[in-house]
């Protein structure tokens, strides 16, 4: 028996219309809206799609954490160049978040291997939080401090962790050679511009 694809306009149109309904909750299999919640498994950092009920039920537990899409530019951030050098991060772009699995702050930054992940000094993190109280309500595993000091910039953002992973993905995809190459930095510049635009929009929404 051979299968022939037929141009069935009614079935095709219907399928096009129902594609959006084909996403399902990873926990209860219920069909979910295209704009659904995401949970991250704290230990593995894996993302899961969730229906509103499962997100509410599991989102603040020990195993999973719910993602909250927010991007805040942290203005008047207090971090001197000397303090920054003390962190011993070899590149002027990094993000730091509190990891439940690592039992403490973790720093992630681009490097020749794509990205490098290292423990971040607990003392240094405490000092950062003391100097910048906005960091105190950073949710572990799902939110990060993004630091951009490239080419003289001094930008600090509080971003949801999926934005950080998007940046990692971008760097993995475009990194060439030892220094990354022009392409990767161009991609990073676009990403940061997007972040600023996002912040701009958010500010506009909240007046």
């Amino acid at each position, binding site marked *: *028996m051979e*299968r022939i*694809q*037929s*141009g*069935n*306009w009614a079935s095709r*149109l219907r399928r*096009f219309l129902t594609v*959006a309904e084909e996403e399902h909750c990873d926990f209860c299999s219920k069909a979910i809206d295209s704009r659904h919640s995401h949970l991250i498994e704290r230990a593995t950092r894996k993302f899961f799609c969730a229906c509103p009920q499962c997100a509410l039920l599991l989102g603040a537990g020990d195993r999973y954490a719910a993602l909250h899409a927010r991007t805040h530019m942290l203005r008047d951030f207090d971090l001197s160049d000397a303090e920054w050098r003390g962190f011993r991060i070899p590149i002027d772009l990094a993000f730091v978040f509190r990891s439940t699995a690592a039992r403490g702050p973790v720093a992630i930054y681009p490097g020749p291997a794509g990205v490098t992940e290292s423990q971040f000094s607990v003392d240094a993190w405490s000092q950062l939080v003391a100097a910048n109280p906005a960091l105190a309500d950073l949710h572990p595993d799902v939110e990060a401090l993004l630091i951009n000091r490239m080419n003289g910039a001094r930008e600090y953002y509080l971003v949801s962790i999926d934005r950080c992973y998007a940046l990692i993905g971008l760097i993995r995809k475009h990194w060439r050679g030892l220094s990354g190459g022009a392409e990767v930095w161009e991609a990073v510049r676009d990403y940061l511009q997007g972040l600023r635009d996002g912040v701009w929009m958010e500010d506009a929404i909240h007046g």
Partner: protein
Amino acid sequence: MNAAAREAETLEQALARLDTLTAALERVSDEKAREAARELLALLLDLHGRAFERLSAIISASGDGPALFEQIVESRDIAAVLLLHGLHPQSVEERLQKVIARMRPQWNARGLHVDLISAGTAFAIVQLKRNGRAEPTQQLRLEIESALTDAAPDLDDILIEMDMTETYAETAA
């Protein structure tokens, strides 16, 4: 397309264009644009669907409902829209059997025998038997498929099962 050209367009041409445009929309990479198109289409169809459902209910409730329905679906324009909304009064099976019955004399004259094996909500299976006259297999399939598809555009697929005996004989000869 201007109004005059649209007026002159046959139902077949309009449906073929609908199929092409749906395929084009599936390929739109801008997710926001695709979603907006999808939502707009869904809403529009939903509005029409609601009206047709009410209309169908009113017709069914009237004295000569079934007869009226028979008459209505004779119009290919109305039938197409009812099919789209899943409101066609005849089942997929009935519609396919009707086509097969209508085509039988012509097919038989060419040594072809077509049987409907099964018809579900997503696809139908028909069996094709041939005796004698050799016609290119692919062309035959296309012909049968398009005749059946016209009556059941709401199916994902129509599978044509072939009795291969004749084909083997053909190859050996």
